[in-house]
């Protein structure tokens, strides 16, 4: 118990350290440049304490519950015994790894859905758009994007194809979609690419990528193990743009059928 409390205290201290530069910048600029007192300083201060405490508890919980199990599973699913391959086998069809793709997609979806940064952005988007963008719909669209991205990323590691071929094709799709998507979603869609991968997703996905690159014969974990995060940042843009396009299309169809 005391060991655990010390660990919790350390996590809390680390979160405080991450918070310090931000607090420093805000206070510095408030005092020196803006020179106006903060409205409701007490409430704000308590809010900062909540944010710090919340992140620390969240991280602690992840360390206790999800990370050990998630990483263990990522390694178990990529062991040659589970995949039923012998070490000296050279060519393994990509279908042999089917559970990896399913696991990658489902863990990508599930972790993104619980990602606090995405929660914050979705919350803000619903508020700003006056409810025309639903927080839940946006989060599901982003999670589907990450699920697809990570599954495709593991497929890339298995087949050993070039990372940048996928990324470039992805951005070409984004480019074409941007031309046709409703203007108001574009900024949000681009942002959702960046927010998907933080606290929860990165450690689990990295473990999966490195484990897989070690298990598949002929892959170099140093080169092939990376790149999953890039996939997870790209595909949400496509799904969010797609979500807006479908919503727009449904709306216009409803309108025209009413006329």
């Amino acid at each position, binding site marked *: 118990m005391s060991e655990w409390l010390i660990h919790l205290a350390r996590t809390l201290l680390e979160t405080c350290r*991450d918070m310090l530069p*931000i607090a420093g*910048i805000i206070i510095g*600029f408030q005092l020196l*440049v*803006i020179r*106006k007192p*903060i409205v409701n300083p007490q*409430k*704000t201060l*308590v*809010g900062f304490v*909540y*944010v710090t405490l*919340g*992140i620390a508890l*969240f*991280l*602690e*919980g*992840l360390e*206790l*519950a*999800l990370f*050990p*199990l998630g990483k263990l*599973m990522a390694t*178990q*699913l990529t062991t040659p015994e589970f995949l039923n391959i012998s070490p000296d086998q050279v060519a393994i069809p990509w279908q042999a790894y089917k*559970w990896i793709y399913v*696991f990658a997609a489902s*863990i990508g*979806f*599930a972790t993104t*859905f*619980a990602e*606090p*940064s995405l*929660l914050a*952005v979705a919350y*803000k*988007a619903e508020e*700003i758009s006056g409810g025309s963008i639903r927080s839940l719909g946006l989060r599901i669209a982003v999670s589907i994007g990450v699920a697809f991205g990570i599954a495709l990323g593991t497929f890339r590691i298995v087949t050993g194809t070039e*990372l*940048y071929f996928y*990324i470039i094709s992805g*951005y070409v799709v984004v*480019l074409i979609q*941007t031309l046709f998507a409703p203007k108001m979603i*574009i*900024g*949000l869609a681009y*942002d959702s*690419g*960046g927010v998907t991968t*933080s606290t929860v997703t990165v450690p689990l996905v990295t473990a999966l990528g490195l484990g897989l690159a070690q298990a598949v014969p002929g892959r170099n974990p140093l080169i092939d193990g990376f*790149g*999953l*995060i*890039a996939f997870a940042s790209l595909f949400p843009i496509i799904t969010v743009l797609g979500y807006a396009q479908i919503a727009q299309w449904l709306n216009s169809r409803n309108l025209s059928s009413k006329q």
Partner: protein
Amino acid sequence: MFNHPFTKRLFSSFLDLVPILAVVLFFQIVIIQQPIPNVAQLMGGTLLIILGLSVFIQGLEQSLFPIGETMAYAFARKGSLFWLLTFAFCLGFGTTVAEPALIAVTDEAARIASKGNIIEQSDAARENYALGLRITVALSVGFAILVGVLRILRGWPLFYLIIGGYCCVLVMTPFAPAEIIGIAYDSGGVTTSTITVPLVTALGVGLATAIKGRNPMIDGFGLIAFASLTPMIFVMAYGMLV
């Protein structure tokens, strides 16, 4: 008790976690067919996550969102471009340079670079390389927020800047050392932490609301997108130069 806002928040945090629990349990029991190790620890940790998530969102509404917006209004009223851009740069640089995820990635990159004989195989060389990379990424995020804020003020379309940036990435990729590409692409994703995202989003939306002729929905978002894009360019440039 059950209608208290915080109780509702706890419940919705629990719902956010259901997918993860479902995935983990399904794969552990049905596919891997192993018993779950340490059930008590799993349950305790899950409770902490739910509590942490709820407290975090409570704090978000109470501090990070309002402070980001009031500062955006204050800067817009003050009308000093110089100080606003300085603030934007500091915010990007300051929050990124100490980011733990970034430190982990740069350490990994230094190991790879030393195995690939790009740098000397000594601890000092590795540390130097990792630190250089970290500062590069932090500079790039500072630069990104600065350009993003300038874009909101001037009303430039987000689209052109993003496409321009990705063209840069495409042109640079074939010339960058192969070992750095994966890291460069990944570093775009790890820079934006849980504390930075709400603050930067509130800043952008606040600015776009305060300035006449800007639409918060069209112009307010996009800062995070820049912060994920510029590290790719800067890290590849670092890989080419060092």
